[in-house]
């Protein structure tokens, strides 16, 4: 317990209040509700006991050599990132409602927004959303608001959990319809676009897509524009160290999962929703936005701005209900990218592509295994395997290697396949172990 009051403190304070006891203060609560029985531990743990309990639990998680990706990527977090995010002036501050006392957080948000714009090649970005899935859903919502249309066209390679989240966001209304752009060789079949896009609010695409493949975005924005639809693009920010940016191929909204910018995997969160758009859509952006301004003396300063879109001002007319976002994760990503710089981001992206290419080469040489698709991929790929992928994964786990995600539950049409990811965190020796584990699991 972290309460400082001694009995004497409480007595003195009650006296100053003019109350005889606490019971006086809570007379407004009907007494039958006060102090019920709880079936909970009578004793708390002291810190060393709690540490022992938590350490014991953490050790019950096993730690195989992992080749899982699928939207969350193992990456080394540099010590300098941890050093900054554990500074309690950042860690224990609130949302910067008092700008004069929050210039540190505000400037960091401004630099974060700028970083997102730089990576994605977009005009504006917000201060973050909950995760990639909620950024994706909010971008599609914005496209629906702007176009007034309710048909959502999406590529089959969009992360299935992004689509699940989107469907949940629109669950309140049966008027929304969905049309899937079919897959051809693991990427969207662009020939199908003109017909599908008729009357659509947006085309939502992810590249590299869920299967790791890089979509050819040439002409896609034009196809959308011709139909009066907006282009919503999701992309892993690390891939943008080398890949063509959403800005370059003409996206209206570009979103992504910022976890890959050096945040721990932590079983799914806290992650970081990246959200950016073209200038003309800035007032449809959800969430907080930081802007540069001047103080009374003309000195540079930062404030939260364009707040007329937000819930605390507009209430039921707000663009979104989001209030808390992922500010500390945004800070981590900003520090991470500042440490790497443009050259480091390119190196990082190329190291990922190299590791995955190496793993793909080794695994596809195993008898019975092959690459499912021929197209260029970023840091993960689909491996066709002989026999049950799920059973193979379980067998390999017994050897301490997680060989990847069986895709059959998500994409039954792909047959027995694994989604295998290798980031820069995987060494040549790791990949040799992967190869051995796959061989033995067949």
């Amino acid at each position, binding site marked *: 317990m972290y309460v400082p009051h001694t009995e004497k403190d409480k007595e003195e304070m009650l006296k100053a209040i003019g109350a005889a006891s606490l019971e006086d203060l809570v007379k407004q609560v009907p007494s039958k509700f006060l102090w019920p029985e709880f079936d*909970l531990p009578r004793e708390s743990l002291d810190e060393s006991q709690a540490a022992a309990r938590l350490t014991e639990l953490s050790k019950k998680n096993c730690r195989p050599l992992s080749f899982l990706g699928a939207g969350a990527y193992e990456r080394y977090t540099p010590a300098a990132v941890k050093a900054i995010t554990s500074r309690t002036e950042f860690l224990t*501050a609130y949302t910067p409602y008092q700008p004069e006392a929050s210039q540190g957080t505000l400037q960091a948000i401004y630099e974060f927004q*700028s970083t997102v714009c730089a990576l994605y090649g977009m005009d504006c970005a917000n201060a973050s959303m909950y995760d990639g899935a909620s950024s994706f859903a909010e971008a599609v919502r914005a496209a629906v608001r702007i176009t007034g249309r309710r048909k959502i066209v999406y590529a089959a390679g969009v992360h299935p959990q992004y689509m699940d989240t989107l469907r949940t966001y629109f669950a*309140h209304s049966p008027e929304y319809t969905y049309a899937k752009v079919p897959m051809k060789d693991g990427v969207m079949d662009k020939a199908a676009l003109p017909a599908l896009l008729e009357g659509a609010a947006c085309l939502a695409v992810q590249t590299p897509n869920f299967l790791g493949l890089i979509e050819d975005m040439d002409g896609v924005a034009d196809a959308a524009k011709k139909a009066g639809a907006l282009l919503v693009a999701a992309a892993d920010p690390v891939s943008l160290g080398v890949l063509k*940016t959403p800005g370059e191929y003409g996206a209206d909204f570009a979103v992504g999962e910022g976890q890959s910018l050096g945040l721990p995997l932590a079983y799914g969160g806290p992650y970081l929703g990246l959200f950016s758009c073209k200038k003309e859509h800035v007032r449809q952006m959800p969430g907080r936005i930081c802007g540069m301004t001047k103080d009374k003396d003309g000195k540079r300063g930062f404030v939260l701005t364009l707040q007329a879109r937000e819930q605390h001002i507009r209430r039921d007319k707000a663009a979104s209900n989001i209030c808390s976002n992922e500010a500390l994760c945004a800070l981590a990503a900003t520090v991470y990218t500042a440490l790497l710089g443009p*050259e480091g981001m390119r190196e990082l992206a190329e190291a990922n592509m190299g*590791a995955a290419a190496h793993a793909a080469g080794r695994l596809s040489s195993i008898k019975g295994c092959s690459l499912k698709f021929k197209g260029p991929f970023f840091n993960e790929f689909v491996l066709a395997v002989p026999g049950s992928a799920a059973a193979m994964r379980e067998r390999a786990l017994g050897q301490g290697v997680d060989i990847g995600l069986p895709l059959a539950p998500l994409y039954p049409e792909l047959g027995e396949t694994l989604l295998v990811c290798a980031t820069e965190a995987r060494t040549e020796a790791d990949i040799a172990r992967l190869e051995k584990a796959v061989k033995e699991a067949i």
Partner: protein
Amino acid sequence: MICVSAIDNRLSVEKSDPGRRGLKIKNPLREKACLKPELRRKDRPKLPEMSEFDVIRHFTRLSRLNFSVDTHFYPLGSCTMKYNPRFNEEAAALEGFASLHPLAHDDCAQGTLELLHDLGSRLKELLGLDAITLQPAAGAHSEFTGLLLAKAYFESRGEERDEIIVPDSAHGTNPATASMMGFTTVNLASRPDGRLDLETLKKHLGPRTAVLMMTVPNTLGIFETQIEEICRAAHEAGALVYMDGANLNALIGMVKPGELGIDMMHLNFHKTFSTPHGGGGPGGGAIVCRKALAPFLPVPTVKKEGGRFVSDFGDGRSIGKVKSFFGNTGVLVKAYAYMLAHSVKEFGEIARCSIINANYVRALLQDLYPSYSKEYCMHECVLTPGPDLAAKGLKTLDVAKGLLDRGFHAPTVYFPLIVHEAIMIEPTETESKETLDEFVAAMREIHALGVSDPQALKDSPHTMPVKRLDEVLAARQPNLRW
């Protein structure tokens, strides 16, 4: 607060030196994937080129421009800025938790699944409700989840209900969530004492009412004395009652919200359960609800089967996912660490001391800053600047800025909207009497300054890194990036 050189008031990119490097990434495999030029980006991203030391110094400098709980008393009403125990941080950073991939096989995730299961069980008991999801990322995200549950519940019963009743004292997220979900918000005027008016409520309740959303205690820090009757009236109309749990700190360990008659509520782990706010997030949310709503909870939830913990994907009636993967698990580990550090009695002590602290501040200030409510408050109080300051043309904002100069973060200001010039103070239980005495002295000094030299207060803050900022300029000519 440290004196900050104006010369150093630069963005990271303005400290950039082309060719300078911080971290390098070696490609250990020396394998180069070939990529067609048309798939490559043309421009280099405009990112800073700095050494690691430059980066550390830049961000360390920024950190020193902030107020935070560790450096300053932070009495933000409705935000529960209590001490964030260091132990929580250490727990979440344990390698076994931090490095677990969200798609790890259940067999590899037994520790985290057990933690989530135990956290959920304890919370259900603490709150007197039957089922829980830990998936929402924050309070507003929980509200969204709660209203989805209501929607699914009514659909399963073949009922069409499209209205959400929200009192005018509610947090802005309540009506924003309702409209995001396609509901119509019915705004309910509060009584002069800030409570809901049962008779007015009954007039608004009807076959179209889906949910009554209410904050308990409300945003004036007042308990809804008639809550049982309110819940009964809502239930008689066939509606559900949603409790916004932002103010749970006032009740924890003292009242089981489930016994009040509500159907579901949300938690903010970053408020009641001491996880840090991080300058605006990450938060952590949960919806705790009655059995009737349980089948609709987001998937997966965690259940125990034999001696093993497994992800449960439900029976197909779930609303689906509100977020990718499990939720903000890292935040939940911190909340669990906090849970372990409290017995039932100690949770009660949190409620007790948060109530004493708020009433103490209120009692020592209300001669100068009249309290909106004439009765004792729960965990927070709403004051106003009072006639002396008003006579000098001074506003709540001036009091807020005056506090910054005296080393205190400002309270929540201009909220709730039903109180003109509101100053909403929530000290939390972790602040000592001495800190509150200093805060009271600062508030009294501000009052004296306002009366003797109103312009000096209007010009405040004087000691911050910047003076009052031009928000109109920021909105008219948005400069949102380098």
